[in-house]
């Protein structure tokens, strides 16, 4: 089957998200779609999935013109989608089983009224095991970590037989090993069912690994279509994507690491997710926390930040013990945390970009009596929009209307603007394009060179290797190993991250 799109345009107030796009895919291929943040990838996918009914242009399936104005129409045509914003597609208070079987519950039961629970759960379990996953189907979805939520969504999409499967940044919250599981599943699916998969990702490495053809988008237009041959380099892809020269190697600027400023001793939480963690950070040092998804990295961050309860342990800064029982204490002590799940924890989606960027530094931007200084706010907001290249028609745009990567940039900007002493970045570059990633890395290095302490958490080993000075590898809630970044490599980190010991 062939899905064809001709002269497709989509406009939002102040933004031409798609401009006269021609696009075609056929079953049997895995197509990559890449582009900078806000290039229009998700918008194109949403049109195909019936979630953007306001499009203009024509869509054909096997040469026959079709209309896709509702998600139901898309499903009828055999188009399934896994949305980029994971939490908007799941119902948090329902169980994993119910979420996976949602389509069945809504339209698959036909005349039946009573839900056959054992069967429902069994089928949900089967969908999960097809992906090689072991998640209790009775768990409520809001208790899962982000990566597992993502897998639940994928399980839901592949349960249905479909002809076109659209995956919008499914690997963003996944670490290497989970990504490999997903790829295996994709390959199996391709062998058995000859469907078409459209795959969006900002990790170009994995794109060259699994995809056969590549579509590059820039500013709402398709600028390139090409088969992925061994000759295609990542550098080339990035340059077409950004429309400018790009230097692949990220310069690890040498900066001085001073005396020890920050120390954590024997930290554990009450939820049993973090056990006896101890580490230290020097002045101006960037310390990485590596580990697989579920190793307790995010839990450690939240614990440090006072967002969860401590059962033991001490935190020292400048040799003095800090009393941190809640997040307010943490902020008062000069901490900042860029959390992992941006929509749920990082930004206020129904407020403007400006509101969000200044929301963590209002103290500085208001008078002694607490009155706001709008001009100052505006100045700060514009500064960070410029600095991080947030693509938005105006600083008064609602964050909900930004593309996924740009929302993430706002979440990062908010804490950069706060000017703290200890920065905790939990997967800050998730969903951010290669170009902007470089800018964020540069900003983090600048922070460090000002003598601040930086904790950089990531499940992407490559990132850990390129930005940190020293790295702690976590495994099931404990620190497994301390490594000096310049003297380690991917294999070694992976070895300890999967539970290896000396």
């Amino acid at each position, binding site marked *: 089957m062939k899905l064809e799109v001709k002269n497709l345009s989509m406009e939002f107030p102040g933004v031409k998200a798609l401009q006269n796009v021609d696009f075609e895919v056929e079953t049997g291929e895995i197509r990559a779609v890449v582009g900078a943040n806000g290039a229009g990838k998700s918008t194109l996918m949403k049109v195909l999935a019936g979630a953007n009914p306001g499009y203009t242009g024509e869509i054909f399936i096997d040469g026959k013109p079709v209309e896709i104005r509702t998600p139901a129409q898309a499903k009828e045509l055999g188009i399934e989608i896994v949305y980029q914003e994971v939490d908007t597609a799941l119902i948090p208070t329902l169980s994993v089983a119910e979420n996976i079987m949602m389509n069945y519950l809504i339209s698959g039961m036909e005349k039946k009224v009573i839900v056959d629970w054992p069967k429902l759960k069994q089928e949900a379990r089967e969908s999960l095991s097809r992906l090689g996953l072991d998640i209790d189907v009775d768990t409520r979805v809001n208790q899962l970590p982000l990566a597992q939520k993502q897998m639940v969504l994928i399980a839901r999409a592949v349960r249905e037989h479909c002809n076109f499967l659209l995956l919008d940044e499914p690997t963003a919250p996944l670490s290497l090993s989970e990504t490999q599981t997903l790829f295996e599943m994709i390959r199996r699916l391709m062998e058995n069912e000859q469907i078409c998969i459209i795959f969006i990702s900002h990790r170009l490495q994995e794109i060259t690994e699994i995809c056969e053809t590549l579509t590059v988008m820039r500013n709402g237009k398709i600028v390139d279509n090409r088969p992925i041959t061994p000759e295609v380099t990542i550098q080339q892809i990035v340059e077409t994507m950004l429309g400018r020269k790009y230097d692949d190697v990220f310069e690890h600027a040498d900066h001085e690491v001073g005396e020890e400023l920050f120390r954590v001793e024997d930290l554990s939480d009450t939820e049993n997710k973090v056990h006896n963690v101890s580490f230290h950070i020097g002045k101006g040092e960037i310390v990485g926390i590596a580990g697989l998804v579920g190793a307790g990295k995010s839990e450690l961050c939240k614990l440090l*930040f006072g967002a969860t309860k401590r059962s033991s342990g001490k935190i020292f800064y400048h040799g003095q013990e800090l009393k941190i029982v809640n997040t307010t204490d943490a902020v008062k002590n000069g901490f900042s945390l860029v959390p992992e799940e941006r929509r749920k924890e990082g930004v206020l989606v129904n407020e403007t970009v400006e509101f969000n960027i200044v929301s963590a530094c209002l103290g500085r931007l208001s008078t002694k009596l607490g009155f706001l200084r709008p001009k100052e706010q505006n100045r700060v907001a514009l500064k960070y929009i410029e600095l991080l290249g947030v693509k938005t028609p105006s600083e008064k745009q609602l964050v909900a209307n930004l593309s996924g990567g740009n929302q993430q940039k706002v979440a990062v900007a908010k804490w950069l603007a706060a000017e703290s002493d200890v920065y905790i970045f939990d997967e800050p570059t998730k969903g951010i394009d290669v170009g902007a990633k470089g800018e964020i890395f540069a900003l983090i290095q600048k922070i460090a060179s000002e003598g601040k302490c930086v904790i950089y958490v990531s499940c992407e080993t490559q990132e850990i290797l390129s930005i940190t000075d020293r790295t702690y590898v976590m495994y099931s809630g404990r620190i497994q190993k301390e490594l000096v970044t310049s003297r380690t490599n991917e294999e070694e980190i992976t070895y300890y991250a999967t539970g290896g010991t000396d």
Partner: protein
Amino acid sequence: MSDTKEISSSNPLKRRKKFKVSDYTALFAIVVLLIVFSVLRPENFPTRTNMVTILRSISVTTVLASGLTFTMSIGGLDLSAGNMASMSGYFCASFILWYGMNQYLAIGLTIILTMMLTLITMFLIIKCHIPELLATCAMMFFLEGLGLTYAGGSAISQGLPRPSGKPAEGVFSNSFKAMGTSPTIIIIMIIVVIFAYVALNHTKYGRYIYAVGGNKTAAKLSGINIERYRLYTGMVAAAIIALAGVLVVARNTSAQVSGAASYQMPAMSAVFIGQSVLGVRKPNPFGTLVGATLVGILDNGLVMLSVPYYALNMIKGAVLGIALIAAYANTKTD
């Protein structure tokens, strides 16, 4: 980077903002009602005195609704505000009439006691984690009973003896009664609205309140102590609610049985209508004023048309429903 340059072009908000019918529905409805009532009752409705009457009658609703605006901005809900205001009324009236207290002292004490009672609500919500709707529902019943018990099951008014049978010597002074008449009551309303507007839109505390109302987790991780701000907001709301209770007493020159409870629903409607005003999409003081005005005009006009009392609420409900349909029908749900 070419896209970020667009930003600096002049006044992007105005340029971008599309005219949306729903943003103006409430204002439009007010105009329509004014015209309809003026046409139907040309000799009584569009008069100066009647306009003042309307303004006076919306004053209490607006003040109470301003308190609710604070509560709802932080993501709360308060079903007990009306009964709380009644309770404040009993306090104030009894202090003046039973104990002959200085009226300003009485008002101050009323506000303090109301805030202390609100601490119970806050305890239920913040410490016991009871959903706001349920906690304030319980408070609603509790306060109704508490008020009646305090007043001995009847109204507190000038000349009426105390529940114990002892005579009550205090009187309402003219300056106290003036608080319930125009222009004082209107001025008080305007001051309260301006206070709420400035507090919510021009101080960092207002930002924190909206941030918590928008996303509790994100607010918490921004270092905002959400429990503390819920408490502060509750206290500010309580002070305003107490003021509403005092205004009701001044208007009626007595503390009637559940005298302010009837303002609960109009005030809540006002906040809800207000959310659609000018596309703000969250509780806001100016919108609340517009909402209260709409409700007030409707009330006044319908009475003037001599709609039978038993049909009054039916028509009010229907008109409000239509206004809300227009305001919300074409907004996106996400």
